[in-house]
Every structure is written in C-alpha cells, then in structure tokens.
C-alpha cells in the first residue's frame, strides 16, 4: 500500500519533459518533490505564476510571492508572473499539459466531486472547476476509500460535482487506474503488496481488469 508520498512518487512518473503542470493542494503538491531526473517541468500556480520554485529559506519569505495555496514560495530563472485572468486564460486554452488534484469522489465516466459536502460549511471551489473543465489531462490523487470506509471510485458521484467527464487517470494507495472514454476504471497497476482482490473489494464503480496486473515499480 502506498502512503501519500508513494502516491505522489507514482504520479511523478507520468510527467514528461517540457510539461506545464498545475498541482492542487495536498498530495498533488508533493509530486514536485519527485520529478524524475533529466525531466524539466514548469509548475503553474493559478494565482498568476509560471515557474514556481521551492519554499524560501527562512527569513527570505516575501509576502508578495505566494502560490495558489497561499504558501510563501520563490521564483526560478525563467519564471513569469501575470494576472489571474491570464492565468485561467492559459488554463482554459489548454496550454497546461497536466492537472493533478485531489478528489472526494470520481465516477466511472470521469466526473469529479471535490468541493462541497451538503450540510457542511462550504469554503468554495477556488480554481478547481476551471481546471477540470479545461485541462487536457487530469490525474486525481486520492485515498481509495473515505473515512467511513466507502469507495471513492463510484458508478456515479453522490456529492455535488466539480466537473464532468474529465478525469483521465487515478492514483490511490491501492493502484493506478485509467478512466476509459466509454466508462469504467481500468486497473493498470497494483500498489506494492496489494492484490487485485483487495482493489475489487474497495471499488464500487465498474472495474475493468484485463490480463495480469503488474505491481507498480517506483
């Protein structure tokens, strides 16, 4: 079974040289720590920055320089800064190659719910609806089941949607799944030590298993 860093590490293997990538809050942020050697990836922060660098050294925090998670960050040589409309303009125009974000639920047709739980205080969708509506490629990083032990890979979402037919791939602590255009979670890889049976038991939506499923190599 993967921990959060394991999920991030596995997702990092999806990165390709030259990609522009938007990382959501939580596990997706950790992906930045595992960018494979020899691959150059540019991180976009939707408040208005391309080329997000690491956190500043202590004492060098700049209150004018934050990411979409409101954390103090740094720029890199080649960074550019712009207003939030241009930031979402480049997202909407499909210039960001990959969006990685968390989810509460994903349905077998690629719908995603990650912003609102009826009855609970709603903080807002931030940029998530814009991102999922426009990104060419969306990978969801999440736990396979919720705190109540219920599968988050569902036939259809029960929570209010963030976007429809958009998730392309899911990485959980149990495995890696493609969301097929015709519907269904196609199991690609098992997490270390996890059996196909365990994945079946934790997946409520249509699970597609073809042939032998390899254990992932990290």
């Amino acid at each position, binding site marked *: 079974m993967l921990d959060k860093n394991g999920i991030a590490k596995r997702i990092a293997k999806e990165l390709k040289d030259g990609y522009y990538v938007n990382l959501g809050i939580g596990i997706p942020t950790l992906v930045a720590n595992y960018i494979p050697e020899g691959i150059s990836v540019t991180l976009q*922060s*939707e*408040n*208005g*920055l391309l080329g997000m660098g*690491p*956190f*500043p*050294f*202590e*004492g*060098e*925090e*700049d*209150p*004018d*320089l*934050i*990411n979409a*998670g*409101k*954390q*103090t*960050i740094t*720029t890199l040589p080649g960074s550019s*800064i*712009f*207003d*939030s*409309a241009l*930031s*979402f*303009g480049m*997202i*909407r125009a499909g210039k960001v190659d990959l969006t990685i974000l968390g989810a509460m639920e994903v349905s077998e047709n690629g*719908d995603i719910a990650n912003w609102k739980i009826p009855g609970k*205080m*709603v*903080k*807002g*969708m*931030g*940029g*998530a*609806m*814009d991102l999922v*509506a*426009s990104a060419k490629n969306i990978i969801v990083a999440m736990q396979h089941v919720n705190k109540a032990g219920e599968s988050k890979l569902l036939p259809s979402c029960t929570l*209010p*949607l*963030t*976007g*429809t*037919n958009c998730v392309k791939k899911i990485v959980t602590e149990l495995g890696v799944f493609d969301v097929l255009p015709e519907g269904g979670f196609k199991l690609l890889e098992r997490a270390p030590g996890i059996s196909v049976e365990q994945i079946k038991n934790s997946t409520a939506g249509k699970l597609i298993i073809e042939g032998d499923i390899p254990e992932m190599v990290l």
Partner: protein
Amino acid sequence: MNKVVANADEAVKDITDGATLMVGGFGLCGIPENSIAALVKKQVKNLTCISNNAGVDDFGLGLLLQQKQIKKMISSYVGENAEFERQLLSGELEVELIPQGTLATRCMAAGYGMPAIFTPAGVGTEVAIGKEVRNFNGKDYLMEYAFDADFAIVKAWKGDKHGNLIFRSTSRNFNPLMAMGGKITIAEVEELVQPGELDPDQIHTPGIYVHRIFQGKDYEKRIEQRTVRAKG
C-alpha cells in the same frame, strides 16, 4: 491630469451604504489595506464585495466582516475565517461562490467592455443552474456576465499621478482586473512616483482605468501560510 488624493479617507469618501465593491488581492496578498481600514472607520454598511477571498478573522475583509459591514460576498474561496462562517450559518451574510477563473474573467470583461464571456468552468455542476449553456466546436460553455461594480479598490506597488500602476510579484493577482472593472477605481500604492519614472512598456494598468490614487502607509502585508525550507 492629477488623480492624487490625500489619503484613504478622501479616496473612499463617496462609497456609501449598499455599494458594490471589487476588492483586489488573493488571500492576504496584494490587498488594499489602507482602503479597507478607511471603510471600517467610515462604518459604511450593506456592502457587496467581489473578492476572491474574504480575509481572515482580524485582517483583510475580515475587518469589515467583524463590523458586519458586508451584506454579500462574491468569492471563489472563503475558508480561514471563523466570523465569516458564523455569519453565513446564521443567515446574516449572503455568499455567492463562483469559480476563480470565472471571477477573474468577469472582472476583466467589464474592463474590456464585453458584456459576457463564455467559459466551460462549472458546466454540468450546480454553478450552471439558471445559466445559458452554449456549445462551440463540440464543447459546452456557460455564458457568464461582466461584473457591474460601483467601485474597485486595488493595491499596487508603484503608481503615478496619472493613475498608471505597476504590481509586484504575485500581488498582481486580481488587482489589474478589478482596476479595469470598476466604474470608479481607487488605487493605493506603496510608492507614488513622478510621471516618467515608470517605463511605459512596464505599466500593468494604464492610468485611464484609475480615477483616484494615493500613497498608502503602514503596510502590514501579513503572510497567511509561512512555508520555508531549511538552509543547507
């Protein structure tokens, strides 16, 4: 053309009860601290604020919330604010949540004289309820209207008396969009410079969009999430 006013009190003097305001900033980054303080002092009520966030309990728009001066917030994300949550749950405060890119683009649309824009954000979600959906090239888009705000209050790094503005780093965020979008735009700056000191090629907001400008003071620039790495 001299748009300089003496201070924040002077700049906000005709913002009256019930006004709709665009308020620049993302989180606590790039917020018009002086103008917000002047609005608190002025005790103006029933404001509608278009702002990506709602500040924290004791800073930013949180200061207006504390005094119950805000009737409605139009935002994309309103976490980090207990008083906000209390007012919302008690029904004292109205909140309209809209996607961040839609918020930014609706401000920009006002500045570009475009009455409406199309975006796919929110298609198939509750955000789409009551909105016109239109298909272009096989993809659905929502039609979203330009905002109509009485005032915009924004914070820039440098500005001149013509109202030309330059923003620093990611404090740019929503500020130039709101500067364009307000019917009357009030800009506070860290440094008011002489005309000619700003390179014409580097101006982010041309002065034509700005109606009043003043030199701000005592900027706190609070950091919401201080994250650092160890020196090594």
